[in-house]
C-alpha cells in the first residue's frame, strides 16, 4: 500500500506578533519583537516582567455567537481564532464532506491557575495553628465556585470548544 502524503492547506495564528498569519509574518520580516512589559496583570514585583503577550485580541464577536464560550480562557480564545482563520484559509467546504473524515489534533496547555478562590479558601481553612479545616475549605470553595468556569482551566476544555464550534466528528 502506498503511504499517504500529507500537505498543509490552511493556516491560522494568534501570536504576540499579530492576531493572524499575515500580520505575524509581516512583523517577522520587519524584524519586530513581540516581547514587551507584561500588561495583563501587575507583574511589577515579579523577578521577570516581560513576556510575549497577544495584543488587542477581540473575542467579543465569538461571544455574540455563543454564550457557551462566556467562560473560555485566553488559550481557548486564541485557539478558536487561529482555527477559524485556518479553516477559511484552506477553502475547505466542510458541508460537502464526510465529517467523520475531519479530525483534530490539538496541543493543549493550561489556562493558568485561578488563585483568587484558593487564596480566600485557604484564608478560611487554616487556623492560627496552621491546622487545616476541610469543612471550612469546602464551604468557602462551594460558595464561590462557578463550575463552568472551573472546568475551563482543564487542558481538554479547549478541545471541547473546538470540536463543537467546527463540528469535528473524526478522531480528536
Amino acid at each position, binding site marked *: 500500500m502506498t503511504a499517504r502524503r500529507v500537505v498543509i492547506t490552511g493556516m491560522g495564528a494568534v501570536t504576540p506578533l499579530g492576531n493572524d498569519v499575515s500580520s505575524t509574518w509581516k512583523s517577522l520580516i520587519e524584524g519586530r519583537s513581540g516581547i514587551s512589559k507584561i500588561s495583563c496583570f501587575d507583574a511589577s514585583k515579579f523577578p521577570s516582567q516581560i513576556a510575549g503577550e497577544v495584543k488587542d485580541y477581540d473575542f467579543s464577536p465569538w461571544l455574540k455567537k455563543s454564550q457557551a464560550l462566556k467562560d473560555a480562557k485566553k488559550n481557548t480564545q486564541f485557539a478558536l481564532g487561529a482555527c477559524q482563520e485556518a479553516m477559511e484559509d484552506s477553502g475547505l467546504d466542510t458541508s460537502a464532506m464526510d465529517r467523520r473524515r475531519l479530525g483534530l489534533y490539538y496541543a493543549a496547555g493550561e489556562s493558568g491557575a485561578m488563585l483568587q478562590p484558593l487564596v480566600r479558601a485557604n*484564608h478560611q481553612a487554616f487556623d492560627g495553628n496552621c491546622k487545616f479545616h476541610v469543612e471550612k475549605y469546602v464551604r468557602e470553595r462551594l460558595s464561590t465556585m462557578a463550575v463552568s468556569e472551573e472546568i475551563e482551566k482543564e487542558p481538554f476544555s479547549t478541545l471541547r470548544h473546538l470540536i463543537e464550534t467546527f463540528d469535528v466528528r473524526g478522531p480528536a
Partner: protein
Amino acid sequence: MSRRVVITGIGTLNACSIGRDNFWKSALDRRTGISEVKQDEFGPIPVKSYGRIQDFQPSEFIQNRKSLKVMCRDIQMAVVASYLARQDSGLGDGVADPERSGICMGEGLFDHDLEELSETLRHSIDSGEDFDERRFGQEGMSYLFPLWLLKYLPNMPACHISIAHNLQGPSNTLTEDGSGSAAAIEEATHVIQRDMADIMFCGGAESHLNATGLLRPHALGILNPNGSSDRPYPVFSKSGAGLVMGEGGAILILEELEHARKRNARIYAEIVGVSSCTDWKSKSGPAAASESRVAVMFDALGLAKITPEAVDAIHLSANGIREEDIEESLAIQELFGKLTAPPKLVRTKSLTGYMGFAAASTETSLAAMSLKHGRLVPSGSNEDSLLKDPFTFAGKNTGRSPLRYLLVNQFTKGLCHHSIVLKTLGSGS
C-alpha cells in the same frame, strides 16, 4: 504487510489490589475494593464511599527518594503501574532497544496539596481576603519550592516513566479527560503499526482522594451520594445514582507481534481494531445519543474485519451516571439488538470505583486477562440492567467458549469516544 500489535504486560493498582494477579482474582469473585470514607473526611461533600488504595507505599517500587518528592500521588501511581507492567512483561532487564521503545499516557490536571500551598497563599493576600499580585510576586512565590509545578503537570508521568525504563522513543501525553487512557492505547497502537517503535508503555493514573478533587464532580451533581456495603456503586443499572470515585493506575505494554515472539513474551491478546470519534450529534431526540457511539463501535469492528455477531462480550464504558449509561445502552441496542445471541455485557467499575484517567486502561487490562484466561468477569444480576433480554451480563461461567473477540468501550460525553477490539491470539494466528 501491516504490523500487528499485542499486549505483553499489564500493571494495575487500584482499590482491589496492587498488581494484576489479585485484581483478576477479585474480579472473578466480584469482590469490590470500594470502602467507606471516614466521617467528614471531605467536609460537607456527601461522599460515603471511595475506591481507596489502602497502605500505598510507592517507595517499595521507586527507589530514588528525590524523584518521589517531586511526584504527587497520581504520578507515583503511574510510575508504580509502569514497574508492575514491566515485571509482568518479562522485560526485567529493561528494553533491548531504547530508541524503539516509547510511551503514551492519558492524563490531566492533578490536585495540589493544599498544605504545601498554604504559606504561599498566606503571603499573597491583601489586607482584605483578596489575592494580591504584587505580594505574590514579592513574597508568596518564594515559599514555593523550585520544582513545585513539576509535581503536578499532566506530562510528568510520561517523563518519570520514560526515565525509569529508559524509553527514548516516541513520547506523548493526551489530555482527554476520562477518555485519556483509551486515546493513549489508540495512539500507542498506531505508533507501533507505523513502525516508529516496537514497544510502547501506555495507560493512565489518577487520584482525586481529597476535597479539591471531589469538589467539581460534587458541584456538577454527578457523585453518588448513597452507598451501602451491599451495593456501593451500581453501574449500567436502573439504580445508577452517579459516580463513586476510585484512585489508581493501569499501564499496558504494547508490542509488535514478531518482536514479542522473538523474546518468547507471554501474549495476552492482540489489538485488532481501535477507533475514535467526537461526541457529535446531528439528530435530535433519543437517536442523537447513540449516533456517535454506534459509529465508533461499528468502525472498530470494521477495522478488526468482524461483524457484530463475532463479538463475545462488551466491556461497558458505564460509570453509574444514569443518563450516560442509558446513552451507551441505546447504542448497543442499535448495533447488536437484532442478534438472537448478542454479546455478553461486562461491567467492572463497581470493583474499583470510577478511575477517570485510568478507567479505560484498567478496563482493557481486564478484557486482556479475560481473553488470556478464557473467562469473562462476572457482572452481577440482570434484574437491574439497562438492557433487556436477550442481552445479559456475564455470569460466573457463561459466555462462548473459547472467547475470541472482546469490545472495550470508553465514551466521554461532550468530548470523545473510543472503542477497542481485542482478539485472542490463537494457535493459528
